[in-house]
């Protein structure tokens, strides 16, 4: 029997890797993939706690997170396409018109 702590630590590590990608990478697409990693880490936490409590509600929460992630990916990628069309680049450092 694997302790639930191992699963939670794995989820924390995945979340931190996703956060690292969001903070450090310059390519907007890779930043989106890192956000997906973070959402997956949250899902893993939900499922691990569901196993710890013997309760199905964590699975239902994970189901909703998956649905919201699908909506987020569709909108986010549409924004990436729109930005690439108007700027010709999806590097985050080129998108700074709102900074000044």
């Amino acid at each position, binding site marked *: *029997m*694997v*302790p*639930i*702590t*191992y*699963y*939670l*630590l*794995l989820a*924390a*590590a*995945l*979340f*931190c*890797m*996703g*956060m*690292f990608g969001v*903070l*450090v990478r310059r390519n907007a*697409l*890779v930043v*989106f*993939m*890192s956000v*997906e*990693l973070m959402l*997956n880490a949250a*899902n*893993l936490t939900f*499922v691990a706690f*569901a*196993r*710890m409590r*013997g*309760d*199905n*509600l964590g*699975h*239902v929460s*994970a*189901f*909703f997170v*998956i*649905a*919201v*992630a*699908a*909506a987020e*990916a*569709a*909108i986010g*990628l*549409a924004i*990436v*396409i*729109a930005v690439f*069309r108007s700027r010709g680049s*999806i590097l985050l450092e080129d998108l700074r018109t709102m900074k000044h």
Partner: protein
Amino acid sequence: MNIELILFGAFALLTLLSAGTVIFARSPINSAMALVSTFFFMAGIYVLLWAHTVAVMQVLVYAGAIMVLFLFVIMLLNLGESSTRGKPTVARVAGGAATVGLFAVLAIILLKLPAEPATLSTGAQASFGTIATMGQVIFTQWLFPFEAVSLLLLVAMVGAVVVAKSRI
């Protein structure tokens, strides 16, 4: 050393390796393929947690639908490898340090939680994480969030078309 621990170790190691490839790969297409393998290995971990339905949805929705969307966009934009690596600015170094700090804090908290999984009776174990039990909860107790999510998906679909289209 039981088989469950070995399987968990293998899946966890492969998940972390693929996640590392997602963050550090030079070309976005390598990141996307590594993300697909991350999702597959995480589905294995869900099965180890008796969440069979979530594991199947992970493969269908994430590794299937969402990653196809990502690959379509990468090929549509025809991105090459990033030739230059970004300079390590102050914000980036601070971000990396914050990540390590966050993991340390999370680990300290998580290690204080109880680690024992629930012991279920044979009947409860047979129905744990199946579509039937999940559906019962979704369509009675969580009906309103379920309908809200369906509306959200509709709005996201219309919004994606409106945003990505050049002329409407």
